[in-house]
């Protein structure tokens, strides 16, 4: 494009073309935050599972609180470097995940300090919901289905009582983070 005058028809075509170009195009590597959260969460779950089996001290569960502290700054950095534009859908997705993260911290904090709640069930339910909403917002049904599948399976955490429930958590992290992460990366690459 140059700094030249255009006729009225060209103006309308140009406006339509530019709007089409920006609509619903995923940034390359959109799945990276999902993959980071997914693989690190799986590693955390396995390490805590091993520690609980070895020592039987419930306090190892407190390690979960370190997860957002470690990952949030890294995810924010990845997100900032990756995005060459911000769309309205990006903003909505960002707030879905911020709110989900805060809600999980509140639920886990309450469980620890005041009322006994099934924090594992609530956490996975909320993570599945956030993944499903992300999939719906970016119009990738397979991501939404992975999130909904996570939500459907999450009540299984209510029946498993010992440390083996962490193995269920590993499977759910793969379902709601790792699988959608790879799908988003693939779709963003092929959409360019």
């Amino acid at each position, binding site marked *: 494009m*140059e700094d030249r005058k255009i006729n009225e028809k060209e103006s309308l075509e140009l406006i339509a073309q530019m709007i089409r170009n920006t609509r619903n195009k995923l940034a390359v590597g959109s799945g990276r935050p999902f993959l980071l959260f997914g693989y690190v969460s799986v590693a955390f779950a396995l390490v805590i599972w091993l520690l609980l089996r070895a020592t039987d001290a419930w306090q190892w569960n407190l390690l979960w609180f370190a997860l957002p502290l470690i990952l949030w700054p890294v995810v924010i950095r990845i997100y900032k470097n990756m995005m060459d534009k911000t769309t309205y859908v990006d903003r909505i997705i960002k707030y879905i995940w911020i709110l989900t993260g805060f809600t999980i911290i509140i639920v886990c904090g309450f469980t620890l300090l005041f009322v006994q709640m099934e924090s594992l069930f609530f956490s996975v339910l909320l993570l599945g919901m956030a993944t499903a909403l992300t999939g719906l917002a970016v119009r990738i049904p397979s991501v939404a289905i992975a999130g909904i599948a996570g939500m459907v399976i999450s009540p299984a955490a209510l029946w498993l009582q010992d440390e083996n429930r962490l193995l269920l958590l590993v499977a759910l992290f793969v379902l709601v983070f790792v699988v959608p992460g790879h799908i988003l990366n693939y779709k963003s690459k092929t959409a360019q």
Partner: protein
Amino acid sequence: MFKELNPLLHSELRLGIMSLLLSVEDADFVYIREQTGATAGNLSVQIDKLSKAGYIEIEKTYKGKMPCTLCKITPEGVKAFEQYVDALKSYIPFKDE
């Protein structure tokens, strides 16, 4: 009756920039350059003109260690764009008219 077209927007590159920024929250300089296919120098001049008119906001920031220029359309820019499209309609013969 033909309405007058805003001369600031009635240019290929400036209209391209405005149309692009209208459909996103913000976009960086490199992305706008890729989408418009303009040269960096020309794009910089046109962005400066739109900014001086109050149609877009420019934020100088960093992506990692690289400097990054973020552009965002202002409410004034949206209004000017709407008026431009409205004026444009007066030039287009619609079938039902």
